[in-house]
C-alpha cells in the first residue's frame, strides 16, 4: 500500500453520449481509475453549477462534466449551454480560491468509451497532482446545522 | 524579411558546396535572413542513431539547445540537408514523445550547461520553407531567366517527406512541392515516378552493388523521361547519384550522363545569377549540355585533384589470416603487410 493521494471525483454524464461511453468502456473491459463516481443526467445542459459546488463542498476533489461533442447534442444544442456555464463557473471558483482545473469538461460520444477512460485517467492524475481540495484552514464548522449551544472556536487567536 | 535559424551541417561545407553557394545567392534575393547555429556540431548523419540512441540524440540535441538559445524573432530552425533535417526533427519529436529519453538527453546536455525543451523550435526543411513561407508567387516574381525548355526530373529522396512528424508535406509518397517549385522557374517538369525512392545512401560504402542498382534505377528512369538533369534537395542523394554514376555505368555497361544538381542551383540560375556563382562546375557529371539548352554557359570544371592514395595508417593483417596461420604475427610483419 502506497501513500498516494486517491482523489474522489464526481462525474456528471449525459444519458445519450458519455454515460453510454462509460457503458461501452465497460463492455470492452477497458480499465480505468476507480476514483470517479458517475451521476447520470439526461443532458449536460441539465448541469446546474450548484451540483458542482455541492460536490466540491461535499468532499469531492474534482468534478468531471461530460457531454456530447459540440454539434452532436441529443437535444440539438444544450451542450453549448453546459460549456458556457462551465466556463463561467470556473472563473467564479477561481475567486473562491479553488483551482479551476478541478472542474473539467470532456466531450465524449457514445462510441468513445476508450477515450472517456483515457480522459478519466488523465483527470485523476491532474487532480492527484493538485492534491486534496484543501480549503484554507479558517473554519472547521459547517453551516446551519451547527448546534446552538456550541460556541464558535477560533482556530487561531487574532485580535479584533 | 523572413528569418530562420540556419543549421548548415557538414555536407554544406564539403561535398555540397554547390548547395551552400547557391543557397546563399537565393536567400539574398528572397530576402531571407539565415542565422547560423553557433558552434554547431555533426547531426550524427544516418548511422549514429542505429548504434546508440542516447549519445546520438544528445549529439543532435546539443544543436537544438544552442539554436533554442539563439531564438530571436523566430524559432524556426531550417536545415537544407535531408539527414540533418530528419535528425533534428526526430530528436525534437522523440524527446517530447518519450519523456524518459528527453530527460536522459537533457542530463547529458546539462554537462555542457545546456538544456532543450522539446517543441521550442520549429524544424523545417529548406524546400518546405521556400514553398510554404516564401511562397511560389514571390519566387516566380524573382525569375528573370526562365528555365524554359529545360526538362527536369525533381527528386526528393527518402528523408525529407517521411515520416513528416509535423505534417508539413502534401504527401509522403508523392509530394509535389519540388515539382511546383521547379515549375514556377519555367522549367519543364517531368512527372518523375521515383521522386521519393532511395538513392542508395550509405550502401555505396558498404554494399556498392546494391547502391549501383538503386542509382541505375533513378538515372535510367530520368533518362527514360528524357530529362536534361535531375534536381535534388539532399547532399547525400546528390553525392551518390553524381559521384557513383560512373561506377554504376561501368558496372552495368551503360552510358548514362545524367547531371545531378541542387534545386537551389537552378533557382539561382533562374534568378539571373551566373552559373559559376550558382555552384555549377562542381558536379562530376557535367551539366554543361543541359545548361546549353537554356543558353547558359557552364563554367569550366575545376581541375580535378590528382587521385590520392588511400588516407591514413596501414591496416593490421586480417584476423582470420592470423588464426589460419596458427601463429602470432610479429609487429614488424604487420607493419609491412600492406
Amino acid at each position, binding site marked *: 500500500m502506497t501513500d498516494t493521494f486517491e482523489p474522489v471525483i464526481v462525474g456528471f454524464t449525459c444519458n445519450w453520449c458519455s454515460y453510454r461511453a462509460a457503458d461501452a468502456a465497460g463492455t470492452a473491459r477497458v480499465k480505468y481509475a476507480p476514483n470517479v463516481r458517475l451521476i447520470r443526467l439526461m443532458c449536460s445542459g441539465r448541469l446546474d453549477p450548484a451540483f458542482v459546488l455541492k460536490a466540491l463542498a461535499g468532499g469531492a476533489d474534482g468534478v468531471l462534466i461530460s457531454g456530447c461533442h459540440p454539434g452532436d447534442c441529443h437535444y440539438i444544442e444544450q451542450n453549448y449551454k453546459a460549456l458556457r456555464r462551465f466556463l463561467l463557473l470556473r472563473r467564479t471558483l477561481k475567486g473562491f480560491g479553488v483551482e479551476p482545473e478541478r472542474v473539467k469538461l470532456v466531450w465524449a460520444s457514445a462510441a468513445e468509451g476508450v477515450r472517456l477512460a483515457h480522459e478519466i485517467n488523465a483527470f485523476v492524475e491532474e487532480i492527484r497532482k493538485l492534491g486534496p481540495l484543501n480549503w484554507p484552514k479558517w473554519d472547521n464548522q459547517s453551516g446551519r446545522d451547527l448546534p446552538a449551544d456550541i460556541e464558535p472556536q*477560533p482556530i487561531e487567536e487574532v485580535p479584533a | 524579411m523572413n528569418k530562420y535559424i540556419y543549421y548548415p551541417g557538414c555536407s554544406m561545407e564539403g561535398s555540397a558546396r554547390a548547395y551552400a553557394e547557391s543557397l546563399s545567392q537565393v536567400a539574398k534575393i528572397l530576402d531571407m535572413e539565415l542565422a547560423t547555429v553557433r558552434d554547431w556540431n555533426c547531426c550524427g548523419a544516418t548511422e549514429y542513431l542505429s548504434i546508440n540512441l542516447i549519445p546520438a540524440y544528445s549529439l543532435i540535441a546539443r544543436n537544438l539547445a544552442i539554436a533554442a538559445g539563439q531564438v530571436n524573432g523566430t524559432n524556426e530552425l531550417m536545415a537544407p540537408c535531408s539527414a540533418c533535417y530528419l535528425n533534428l526533427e526526430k530528436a525534437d519529436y522523440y524527446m517530447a514523445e518519450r519523456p524518459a529519453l528527453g530527460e536522459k538527453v537533457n542530463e547529458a546536455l546539462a554537462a555542457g550547461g545546456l538544456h532543450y525543451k522539446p517543441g521550442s523550435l520549429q524544424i523545417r526543411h529548406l524546400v518546405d520553407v521556400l514553398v510554404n513561407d516564401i511562397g511560389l508567387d514571390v519566387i516566380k516574381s524573382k525569375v528573370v531567366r526562365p528555365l524554359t525548355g529545360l526538362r527536369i526530373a525533381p527528386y526528393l529522396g527518402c528523408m525529407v517527406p517521411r515520416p513528416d512528424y509535423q505534417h508539413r508535406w502534401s504527401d509522403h509518397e508523392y509530394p509535389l512541392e519540388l515539382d511546383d517549385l521547379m515549375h514556377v522557374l519555367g522549367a519543364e517538369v517531368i512527372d518523375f515516378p521515383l521522386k521519393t525512392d532511395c538513392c542508395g545512401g550509405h550502401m555505396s560504402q558498404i554494399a556498392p552493388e546494391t547502391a549501383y542498382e538503386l542509382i541505375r534505377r533513378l538515372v535510367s528512369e530520368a533518362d527514360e523521361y528524357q530529362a536534361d538533369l535531375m534536381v535534388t534537395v539532399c547532399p547525400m542523394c546528390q553525392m551518390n547519384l553524381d559521384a557513383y554514376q560512373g561506377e554504376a555505368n561501368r558496372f552495368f555497361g551503360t552510358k548514362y550522363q545524367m547531371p545531378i544538381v541542387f534545386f537551389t542551383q537552378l533557382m539561382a540560375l533562374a534568378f539571373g545569377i551566373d552559373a559559376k556563382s550558382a555552384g555549377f562546375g562542381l558536379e562530376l557529371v557535367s551539366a554543361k549540355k543541359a545548361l546549353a539548352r537554356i543558353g547558359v554557359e557552364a563554367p569550366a570544371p575545376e581541375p580535378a585533384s590528382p587521385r590520392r592514395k588511400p588516407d591514413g595508417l596501414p591496416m593490421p593483417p586480417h584476423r582470420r589470416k592470423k588464426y589460419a596461420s596458427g601463429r602470432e604475427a610479429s609487429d614488424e610483419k604487420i607493419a609491412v603487410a600492406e
Partner: protein
Amino acid sequence: MTAKPKFAMYWAASCGGCEIAVLNTHEKILDVDANFEVVFWPVAMDAKYKDVEAMEDGSILLTLWNGGIRNNENAEMAHLLRRKSQILVAFGSCACEGCIPGLANLSPLNEIFETAYHTVSTENPQNIHPQVSYPAPEGTLTLPTMNPVLKTLAQVVDVDYFMPGCPPESHQIAAVIDLVIQVVQGKAELPPKGSVIGCGDSTVCDECPRTRNVKAITAFKRIQDVAPLDPELCVLEQGVPCNGPATRSGCNARCPRAGAQCIGCYGPADDVIDYGARLITAFASVVDAREPAEIEAILDGIPDPTGQFYRFNLADSLLRAGKGAAMSRPNAITSGGKP
C-alpha cells in the same frame, strides 16, 4: 412598569444602515414605543450587557439582530439574546447571509489585518497593530477576538425569522412592526418559524416594470459604459449584469426602477439552493456564443464573477457552508487507493 412586551435590537458586524432604516420608518417608530418596552438597543439608548444577562430567559418578546458574527463578542451576544428572546429575527442582509462583511471570508484573517492596518489606504504613521489584551496601569484591557470567518446569525444560533435587505426597506419594516403589534394584540398569527418576512416570495423581476424579451447577450458591460440605458428595457438584456432574476422581491425593484442594475441585497428567492450558482447559470445560459474563445471574451465583461454573484451571499453560499463538511471528511487522503 407597564406590561408592554419587551423589544431589543442589536448591532453586530454590520454598517449600521439597518438601524437607520428602522429609524427611517418615521412616525412608525412611535408605534414601537407605544406598544413595546425597549429594553436593549445600544444605538438608541444606554444599556449594559449585564442588564440583559440579568433578565429572565425568554423575557424579551422580539429581538431584531443585525450584523454577522465576526468576533467572540458578537457570538456571545447572539447566544445571550437568543436565550433571552422569544422571537429572534435575523434583520438585514448581514445577519441573514453575511452581506459585504462576509466577503472578507475570501481572505484569511492576517491578510484582512494587513489590508486594514498596513496598506497605502490606511494612514498609520505609528504602525499600530491591535492587540487582544493590553496591560494598562489600571489593569489589563481586552478586546474581542476575531473569528476566522464571518458567520451568519443562523450559523451560530437558532433563528426564528429572516428579514433580508441591505438594509430592509422601511415600508417592509413598518409592515413587520404592524404585524407583530397585531399578533401582540391577538389580531394576527405569526408566520411559521423559519420564514423569510418583510419581503416578497418571488424575484425582483416580478416587481420590475421593464420590458423583457428572449435574451441573447453578446457583451457584458459596466453600467456606466451603457449610455444611455434604455429606461424601458430589461437591464440584463442591455448587457449589464443585473442580479434581479435570482434576487428575492420585496424592494419593489428599487434599483432597476432607478436605472441601475439589481445587486442582489435581498438575497436568494425561495427554492434557491445557491444564490451565486443561480446567477452563474442564468447569465451563462443567455450568452450568445458557441466557441469557447467567443464565450470567454463575453465573460470577460464580468471582471469579478465571485463578487458579482456572491456580493451579499458569500457567507451563506453552498461552497462556504460546505467548507466545514469538506474539512471534516474523514481523511480524504487514503492509502493504497482504499477509500
